[in-house]
């Protein structure tokens, strides 16, 4: 089983597969066998007990990530209202210190609707694609998208409501996102209108805070209400085409969350907090085919799993950087 291909399959909505026997490296086999010894089991059992008894929520990364989202979005607002011209425009397209930037998904829609490749967009898209490729692709979601932030806050509330039985958590089929992606692309191409953009919560929120177009946020409100009471993180998990666009970029990105089988207790705290838990299926006991694995394309690099992991089995890694230094 090729882990890269498996990551792409999962990104498009396939359920994670169990690896076959021949997929495991010798080292991984040894580690799994070692973890099965009674002493090791007992040791892990004690450690998990200890961990759960002293559970404390960590904000080690969120204390950086949340301000990053806020600062990036505020930069647009400040640039416009105080005329400092750092970042002019909105998240869909902008000039950053005079250089064209274009959101990949918005540019794709314009190209499909307008049926012409625009030079400025090409420049903007290339710049943005390289930047997000460097830092992880879907890191756009977790580190820039304003909807992601409000959705995260609603999720905290949602989990509390579910605990008390006041809200449901209905899972949807993850293939939905891929189908919507194609459907929006076809509709945009056929109609010549940007069918998705007018309901895009990312664009809506970005323009609302910059230009005051607040009526649009009523749609965002409806989405958040559904997420609060019925489907946890519905938009980001099952619908958003922007997320899928950026996960294509993230598939080969050097910035990844790295998994260390040896340190893992397999208690599953990381999968509980993850927006896209299928990418963390390798952390299930016996699933990792290698002792060290980089997490798949769909990962938003939000670092919630890193915060949740008590043993440091999950960490950020920039491929090639260790060789460079």
């Amino acid at each position: 089983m090729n882990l890269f291909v498996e990551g792409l399959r999962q990104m498009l909505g396939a359920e994670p597969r169990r690896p076959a026997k021949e997929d495991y490296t010798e080292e991984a086999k040894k580690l799994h066998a070692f973890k099965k010894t009674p002493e090791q089991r007992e040791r892990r059992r004690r450690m998990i007990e200890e961990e759960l008894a002293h559970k404390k929520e960590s904000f080690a990364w969120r204390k950086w990530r949340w301000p990053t989202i806020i600062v990036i979005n505020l930069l647009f607002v400040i640039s416009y209202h105080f005329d400092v011209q750092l970042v002019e425009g909105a998240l869909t397209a902008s000039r950053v210190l005079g250089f064209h930037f274009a959101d990949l998904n918005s540019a794709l829609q314009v190209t499909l609707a307008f049926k012409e490749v625009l030079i400025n967009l090409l420049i903007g898209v290339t710049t943005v694609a390289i930047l997000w490729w460097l830092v992880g692709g879907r890191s756009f979601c977790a580190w820039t998208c304003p909807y992601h932030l409000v959705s995260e806050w609603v999720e905290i509330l949602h989990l509390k409501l579910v605990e008390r039985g006041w809200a449901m958590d209905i899972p949807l089929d993850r293939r939905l996102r891929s189908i919507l992606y194609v459907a929006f692309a076809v509709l945009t191409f056929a109609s010549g209108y940007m069918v998705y953009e007018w309901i895009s919560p990312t664009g809506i929120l970005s323009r609302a805070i910059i230009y005051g177009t607040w009526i649009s946020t009523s749609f965002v409100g409806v989405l958040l209400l559904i997420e609060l009471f019925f489907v946890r993180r519905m938009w980001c998990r099952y619908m958003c085409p922007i997320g899928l666009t950026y996960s294509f970029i993230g598939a080969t990105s050097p910035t990844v969350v790295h998994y260390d089988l040896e340190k893992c207790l397999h208690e599953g705290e990381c999968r509980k907090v993850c927006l896209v838990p299928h990418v963390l299926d390798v952390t299930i006991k016996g699933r990792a085919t290698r002792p060290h694995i980089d997490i798949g394309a769909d990962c938003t690099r939000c670092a919630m799993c890193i915060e949740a992991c008590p043993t440091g089995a999950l960490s950020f890694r920039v491929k090639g950087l260790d060789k460079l230094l």
Partner: protein
Amino acid sequence: MSENDKDRPAQGGGKKKAPARPYDGPRRTARRKKLSRKQQARRQFLLSVLAGAGLLGFSLTGYYPIATYARAENRLRPPGAIDEHEFLAACIKCGQCVQVCPVEAIILADFPDGFGNGTPHIVAREQACDFSCDAVQCVLACPTGALSHHIDKKEQVRMGLAVLKRPELCLARKGLGFKGLARGEDFSGLHRYIEVDRWRPIRVADHPYDLEICDLCVRECPIKGAIRLEPLGDDPNDKRKTPVVTDKCVGCGMCEMICPTEPPAIVVVPRLKYGETTS
């Protein structure tokens, strides 16, 4: 069924209440019984189809506004806007044109505009485009060419056409002059008066007029020769005059903003070309 306790005919004396049931967790109705794996998968699939279809269906309703109240002739697009259907396709909804306009004439459409959500337009009566930027800044700012980059002079712009919609209100046609503030002292609109400040637009409310015959639409028009006053009759003593719009009109809406009558006698009709008539 303990749930039906209260419905059961009371035994041994009418006033006796059924004993309170000890709390043993949230009650489950028969419907909420654990579904089998297959049923669960089916339900998940159906709900997903429903959610997806609902979202796609809703997204398509965005067509209604641009076919009705937000259609081409109801939205005055910024200078250089290409044909409406193509404009809606090419505009990336970033608002960079909004940011560069010195008189803040351009505003972004909101949710009720459907597919037009986030696209720029001008409400001429509130704040017209008066070209005080000199070099069509909005066109230069547009990253996609939805505002055509083929335009580099204000004279090349064709946003629409000024039309004397309510001739019966026009002061010049009545032979009347105009004294005072064109739009009252609360009006927030800006205009660059070259004779006042070449570089900075000021409030129309800070610029009173005293005119023998009202020629505001001609006087404040930023395009040379786009509009002129012509005598109404042949009699040289007849003071009455009428504004005549020529093929040089770019449809910026300045005449609509400055017209002192309420509602304005002259308005700009978006997308209308010279020689065409309004329907």
